[in-house]
């Protein structure tokens, strides 16, 4: 089973949600890793949760991308390690250059907090094996800057190489290019997405649509 670590930057606020979801599927708690640490040895899957790292000042994720731990994350990625970034975590991964493109202010210029539907573009990655290809599932979203953008050539490449992970299936509220909600790195070992599967893993909270993502990782 993958050894999992959750990165803690000042201002991150969905680390508990993520830890609960991971523990539920993995049967053991993830390691919590402070942003000033530089040693990720023994960690197979690095998770960067949501929140407002460094207050989202300057640009969302820009300062966290310069944190000491991100050098270690880049080395981990270069070794073929797994990385999951959700919401602010996705923004940090694009700022760190580990995923292409950028997340801009939502098209409507307002924070968006509601459930959205995501379509699974492929289910042959370690993140999605417990979903069906084409399956549509529900996930809460909560962001002010989720408007995914990249130059047309990059978008064409993402689509052509099967690197789009999830698309919004019930309307594109934040203005993302080509309805993109999440993307993979070229080796499909890094996933970034805006909505929060970790907040829908318990029937009491309204459903378990997000649980297959963590079950997929737990089975990897």
């Amino acid at each position: 089973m993958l050894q999992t670590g959750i990165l803690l930057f000042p201002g991150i606020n969905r680390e508990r949600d993520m830890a609960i979801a991971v523990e539920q599927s993995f049967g053991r708690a993830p390691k919590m890793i402070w942003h000033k640490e530089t040693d990720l040895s023994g960690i197979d899957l690095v998770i960067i949760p949501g929140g407002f790292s460094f207050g989202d000042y300057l640009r969302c994720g820009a300062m966290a991308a310069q944190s000491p731990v991100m050098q270690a994350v880049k080395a981990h990625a270069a070794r073929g390690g797994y990385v999951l970034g959700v919401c602010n975590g996705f923004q940090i991964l694009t700022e760190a250059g580990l995923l292409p493109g950028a997340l801009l202010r939502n098209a409507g210029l307002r924070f968006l907090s509601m459930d959205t539907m995501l379509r699974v573009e492929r289910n042959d990655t370690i993140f999605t094996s417990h979903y069906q290809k084409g399956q549509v599932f529900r996930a809460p979203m909560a962001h002010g800057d989720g408007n995914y953008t990249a130059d047309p050539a990059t978008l064409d490449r993402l689509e052509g190489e099967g690197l789009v992970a999830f698309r919004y299936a019930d309307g594109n509220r934040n203005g993302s290019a080509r309805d993109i909600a999440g993307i993979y790195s070229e080796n499909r070992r890094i996933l970034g997405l805006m909505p929060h599967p970790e907040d829908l893993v318990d029937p009491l909270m309204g459903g378990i649509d997000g649980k297959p993502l963590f079950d997929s990782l737990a089975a990897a």
Partner: protein
Amino acid sequence: MKPVNIELAKSFGLNAEEYAKVLEIMGRTPSFTELGIFSVMWSEHCSYKSSRVWLKTLPTKAPWVIHGPGENAGVIDIGEGLAAIFKMESHNHPSFIEPYQGAATGVGGILRDVFTMGARPIANLNALRFGDPKLPVTKRVVDGVVRGIGGYGNCVGVPTVGGEVNFHPAYNGNPLVNAMTVGIAATDKIFLSAAAGIGNPVVYVGSKTGRDGIHGATMASTEFDANSAEKRPTVQVGDPFTEKLLIEACLELMQTDAIVAIQDMGAAGLTSSSVEMAGKGGVGIELTLDNVPQRETGMTAYEMMLSESQERMLLVLKPERSDMARAIIEKWDLDYAIIGKITDTGRIVITHKGVVEADIPLAPLSDEAPLYHRPIIETPKPARLRETHDPVGFEVALLKLIGCPDLASRRWIFDQYDSTVGGQTVKRPAQADAAIVRLEGTNRALAITTDCTPRYCAADAEAGGAQAVAEAWRNITATGAVPLAVTDNMNFGNPEKPEIMGQFAAAIKGMGAACLALDFPVVSGNVSLYNETEGKAILPTPAIGAVGVLADVSLATGIAIAPGQELVLIGETKGELGQSLWLREILGAEDGAPPEVNLLNERENGDFVRAQILSGAVKACHDLSDGGLAVALTEMALAGDTGIILHPAPPHLPAHAYWFGEDQARYVLAVTNPHDILTAAHAAGIPARHIGHTGGNSLTLAGSNSISLASLRDANEGFFPAWFA
């Protein structure tokens, strides 16, 4: 610096009598800084000088109350060794002058009141009142306030799970922004503010001090005039990122044994925190302001003592733990400075650049603070509404009501608030009568709500005060939770006007009676007076925030119906249309007496409904309030995307009074076996009536046209998006 005299005292908000008292206490002319300290400590906002005599009459005790009013927030026992710590506080005046920052710092301030006691905040709510939606200024204020609440709450990672919004022209120049935070702590790990330990270091933690918000508490204690916009510099600026760091740093420090006492720097900043900590502990305090972290140069002692810069805390630490505490605070990139020590002098002594800038005896500063028994004129109780004629019929009235600003869906607002962060939100906004938040790692949940019906309070403040408490109790009951305690946020006009003080006294009387009858003590609160602009007062608005507990979270009940259910109305319907929304929206009148609040009926009906929910017999439940039965049924239908087929109104009542009357102590239950509920109700002497069943995709009234759910939804969801399109 201006000379200290009566003119200066008046410009600081003290009257002649109060200034004379200052001279008597000091035995000399106070320094400029000393006068500043007296004036903020004796401001209405900090001293409660007009309201204290009335607040003391509220019931505050119950076996589950751990700390009632007097601490930073109220503390109640919620079982399993856990305490809920909560309070509601206003940020009305700043929110009119600068809506975004006013509302944002309101959220920040109430969060600090809660985590300063050792609680991790788990939920934010709010109670908002705005002016006439037709005015451009109202749109600007609504937009700024909503963005401010979201901007702060979303960033600190505390879910905003509920709230209420009303519109009325009486709030045109004085919108109300009341923010509530609920936190959780272990019952044996609660932190208080009373300083102790002679020689112990006084430590400043958090953001640096600037010149923002100087005399904010004094501003909050006066009426507005045409030049109020000039007061923008008295509004504070919030930094939710620093607040998040402060929450984590304080909670980490609280896991150690370093803290003797802790208090946030809220209104009147360093002055009120240091004075209150030393005063409560019966000790003295010495501060050396040279050590205060400052973000501007050349600040005077007066400016530092009165600044309301945000995200700051004052701590008294055990001296041997000071270095460890510093390491924790600095890990979170926050300023840590030892700025003074606890003394045995009973005085506050403030030194800056080697000069003693203030030296005040603490006991008289609090004990001899002004206390007013202000004169009262009671508002005459209005006559009951005479019988009304319905000019439009059921369908037109219902579509109009559910689309009016006071009843339209609040989705546009709560879609801008992160309601799921933390992963424990069981019932999000509009899913149940109260928000339901599970306590992480347990099977327990809290039910939380905010309520007040100001138009009832304006007509009859005593009935309105009782109704606000009763509705909060009912909203918690409707989820299956046991209501435990309330926090109150008293928003009124100028207390120097006997009519306003009459409203205040009557509202307190009604609230107190309801709290007693419902075993629902007041454990914390806040008073906001002088909500007037150019002599025009707001509607009396005693906003109630309330907390209840569900021992088994799986029984939490929402308002959404499903096909194949039967609908039962609990409670007596007389068809009370006085001060109802039907009367206002259809006949254009704000007339008559508000609905009667029969506290015995409230108690009996509510206890019956809760017992039915906890027995598992109830699939959905909604209390009846604004707009009455027809509006409640529409909300249940829309929430469940399921139609309703209704029996006709009973013949003894005018149909519109039956459908839209706002009689209290009523609930609609969706059940699968109505016979059982009706039998149980009959046996208990509770009025109950089978009113219809669920199914289809329209609201159908026997003998009348069907109204499709789609058209109801369009009417209900239309107002806010159209306003802000």
